[in-house]
């Protein structure tokens, strides 16, 4: 009684977690991830001894008995070995046709009836198995063998599936439907199965298989490349560990024939001026120019120097008197003296004039200020002044002259 109760409880558990168990079987290689979400499922399956695992950190695996049961109810096994299954059925079909032929020769009517029925059933099985066989490959493509974590094992499984698909294609090509159809006699249903349904199923299955095979081959190429990259990363890692400070170099290579993988260009900026010579661009350029002059955004954040609390700007209309500059006054007075002709035929040396003012200013600045002041005079006044430069060529660069003083005198011709 207790045993029956346990069995009932197991079946109820399978029903309760049916979806998760099927998911593990069909999509996850019979593995159940050890996560909080699966806590209830794992506890139940462990209680009913339907899962196993090696280490605590490993995912749980469905037990063989449960996998076999799932294989049966999902027809996984039948699909997996579909090529063998179809092959057996096809042989069976050929034998039935032989018997059928023999029965017809002997006019054994009841046997003919029986064999027709068996042929129909066998043919329907062949069609179904062909469909199932090709559908299985779509599952492999969709999962990408992701349930196998080890790349090497995944590659092996992919190779095995490609082999299986290849076997199935060879098998389909070996079918001689026409020969069988000729033996079908006058039975309309049999003829329809052999001449219409079977060829149509075969054609679409061959098409699907070819596509699947192509995808599986692409997947294999990708996986092999992944494996190559993975090994390369491993090799570099080991090399860096064994050769501390290793840094690859190509400094010794000539690089006249540079390998493609190294040949990449240095950044090359392409910039041009706005076309200010074409009036068609004027409007756009004006707009750009208007936006180009902007006040820096961070002006308000600039730190205020010590001792400057506030800055007050001029009020419109307000005037501020500026103190007189004694140097400027002295120069103006000197120039006015020369312009007015107060010196007569006489002349005055700029250095002597400076000494007379009592101002403490560098002589070079004084001379420069006098020349600037004269140059800023109106043309009429400028003509009344004659300036003689006291100059000597530079001792290293004779094209340059050194000014040591100025002689100013009134120009009567001006």
């Amino acid at each position: 009684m207790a045993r029956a109760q346990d069995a009932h409880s197991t079946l109820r558990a399978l029903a309760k977690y049916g979806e998760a168990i099927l998911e593990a079987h069909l999509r996850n290689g019979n593995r159940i991830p050890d996560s909080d979400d699966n806590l209830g499922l794992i506890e139940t399956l462990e209680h009913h001894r339907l899962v196993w695992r090696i280490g605590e950190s490993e995912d749980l695996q469905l037990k063989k008995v449960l996998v076999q049961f799932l294989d049966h109810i999902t027809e996984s096994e039948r699909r997996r070995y579909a090529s063998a299954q179809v092959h057996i059925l096809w042989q069976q079909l050929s034998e039935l046709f032989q018997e059928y032929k023999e029965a017809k020769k002997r006019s054994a009517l009841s046997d003919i009836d029986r064999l027709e029925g068996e042929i129909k059933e066998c043919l329907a099985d062949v069609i179904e198995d062909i469909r199932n066989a090709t559908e299985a490959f779509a599952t492999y493509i969709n999962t990408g063998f992701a349930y196998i974590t080890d790349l090497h094992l995944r590659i092996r499984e992919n190779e095995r599936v490609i082999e299986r698909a290849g076997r199935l294609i060879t098998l389909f090509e070996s079918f001689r439907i026409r020969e069988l159809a000729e033996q079908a006699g006058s039975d309309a249903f049999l003829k329809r199965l052999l001449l219409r349904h079977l060829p149509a199923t075969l054609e679409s299955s061959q098409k699907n298989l070819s596509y699947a095979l192509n995808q599986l081959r692409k997947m294999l190429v990708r996986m092999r490349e992944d494996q190559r990259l993975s090994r390369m990363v491993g090799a570099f890692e080991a090399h860096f560990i064994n050769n501390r400070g290793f840094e690859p170099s190509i400094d010794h290579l000539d690089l006249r024939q540079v390998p493609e993988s190294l040949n990449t260009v240095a950044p090359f900026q392409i910039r041009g001026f706005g076309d200010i010579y074409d009036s068609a661009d004027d409007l756009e350029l004006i707009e750009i120019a208007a936006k180009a002059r902007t006040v820096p955004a961070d002006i308000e954040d600039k730190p205020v120097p010590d001792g400057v609390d506030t800055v007050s700007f001029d009020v419109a209309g307000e005037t501020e008197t500026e103190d007189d500059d004694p140097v400027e006054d002295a120069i103006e007075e000197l120039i006015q003296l020369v312009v007015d002709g107060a010196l007569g035929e006489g002349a005055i040396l700029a250095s002597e004039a400076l000494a007379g003012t009592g101002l403490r200013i560098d002589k070079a600045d004084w001379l420069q200020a006098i020349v600037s002041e004269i140059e800023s005079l109106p043309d009429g006044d400028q003509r009344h002044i004659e300036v003689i430069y006291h100059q000597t060529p530079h001792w290293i660069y004779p094209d340059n002259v050194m000014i040591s003083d100025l002689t100013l005198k009134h120009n009567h011709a001006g």
Partner: protein
Amino acid sequence: MSSPLFERTVTALLQERVICEVSDDELYNYLLLPGNQDAVNRFLGQINRTLRQTSARDAFVCAYLDTSDAETREAIRHQFRDVANNLEAFVQFLRLVMMLGANDRPVLPGDKLSEGAILERIAAAPALESKLRSLAEKKVFHTKRADSAGQIRAVLSSLEKMGYLKPVGTTGSLFRATGRWSWLYDAMTFIQAHEGIQATEDADSEQMRLH
């Protein structure tokens, strides 16, 4: 008559960008058409440059047509030094990602990398935490942050700045790997052959099993 896509494509190529489906979807699609490739190549050819595809054929790059000029060769050496200087850090990053994914496969263009998912895996495995710490000490990924989250962010941000990752969405924590990885693997393949770095299958598997 100028073509905006042609201009953008050529400018991107000359700026040393690697054009792929992830980094520049529009430009990549433009370059997939043979006629457009010819137009770009005709232009580049006049300035001693040409269009190339990575060996995985998932990204386009610009290369020099003639490398006999000393200045060109120096530019190539300079580009190579950039890779060589940071190679150890990149290898460590790739190994870390392979351990996180537990799928024996390095980062490939189009792969998604989530800051949250990486953090979750690292929190569960102290060995990976020390790997991350060591990675964050490398010059190219350097950060002063001592926490795993800060270190992951620094590593991913550096890779984004270098064009190896492109952010997805607006969170700034989800990225997709670009075709620059393909180009890096091509460069690594050359270095491996040139420096005679042997890949031993057993050692490789052993490395993976240790973690």
